[in-house]
């Protein structure tokens, strides 16, 4: 059963993901704790083998947060595929540079969906296709979000770059 126990590093990373979504320490801890409880119940029942407990718990956190968020406000549920084509090659986002304090400022203003996308891209290292599949988000929606994000990031980083010069 030891391989089913989440280690400290995994717990920290899951907590960080819960923080990315909730932006509130107590809420993040509650999310993590309830997701782990649910995971343990599943394991205890002997349900189908969970290959990657960390990914499983991360999905539980996300689903629980979406449910909670829907209750409070409404999780964005765009189902349309935008027709415009966006140049969202990863290089563009890779090129963006930003100051930590500026990101912190931007981070608080981003929607939870945008933070979720950025987390999957930057921390978990997913490709856009993988992220779409994982987050059950239409690719058009995902691309337009990245497009808007890049514009926001560039708007912040450009003046910064100008100041550096």
């Amino acid at each position, binding site marked *: 059963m030891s391989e089913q126990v989440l280690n400290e590093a995994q717990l920290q990373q899951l*907590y960080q993901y819960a923080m*990315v979504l909730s932006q509130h320490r107590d809420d993040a801890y509650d999310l993590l704790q309830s997701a782990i409880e649910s995971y343990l119940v599943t394991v*205890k029942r002997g349900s189908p083998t969970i290959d990657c407990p960390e990914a499983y718990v991360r999905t539980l956190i996300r689903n629980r947060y979406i449910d909670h968020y829907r209750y409070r406000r409404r999780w964005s549920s765009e189902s349309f595929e935008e027709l415009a084509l966006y140049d969202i090659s990863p290089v563009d986002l890779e090129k963006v540079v930003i100051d*930590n*304090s500026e*990101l912190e400022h931007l981070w608080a203003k981003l929607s939870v969906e945008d933070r979720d996308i950025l987390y999957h891209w930057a*921390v978990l290292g997913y490709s856009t296709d993988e992220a779409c599949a994982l987050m059950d988000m239409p690719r058009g929606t995902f691309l337009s979000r990245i497009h808007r994000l890049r514009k926001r990031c560039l708007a912040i980083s450009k003046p910064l770059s100008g100041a550096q010069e």
Partner: protein
Amino acid sequence: MKKDNPDHNPLPLKDAIRDQASSENLVPEQLNDLMAMQRAVLDDKPQPVRQFPYWLTAAAACLVLVVSFFVWNTSNEQYAREIALEVVENHLKLKPMDVRTQSMTEIQSFFTQLDFSPAQSSLLENQFDLPEQLMIGGRYCSVKGVTAAQLRYRGTDDQLRTFYEVGYDEDKFGRMPDIDKGETPQEIIVKGLKVTMWVEKGLLMALVKDM
């Protein structure tokens, strides 16, 4: 818990996001609690009779379903029998008619105290061979306490039939076959008489005739 980050050097966005995400950490107490919670559950031996509760639950669910169906069915049969008994009693008493007519239009204009309008039954005409012309009149009566219309017909065999109409309420009369939905009328034999009951045009209808 946040890392001190006094420098304002621009970083690649990806690195900045990683820094941002990793700036939040569980405090040691929280971490210990979560580790202890996992061990407490996962270090227990798995329950050996795990399948038994599932089997028992499924069996119990089946039993509840069967019992519910039986109770539902029995209560419906009980309703039907009570209605049949009541209309048969009305048929046997054969109290004087309030109106004598062969016209359904006159019947409709006579029965003004009902909370429905008497209707011509297609089943009566087609299956029981009792067209409007064979009607001889009608009177007020009641079925399970609800004011109803009793219409009388004299068939081509000269036998008297009594036909009952009342506004259909499933809660009051139980589940009755609705011929407008293609269901077959229900037949019950009571006191040597045959009672046929069905729902048509939103009305509960019952025909009593000799066997």
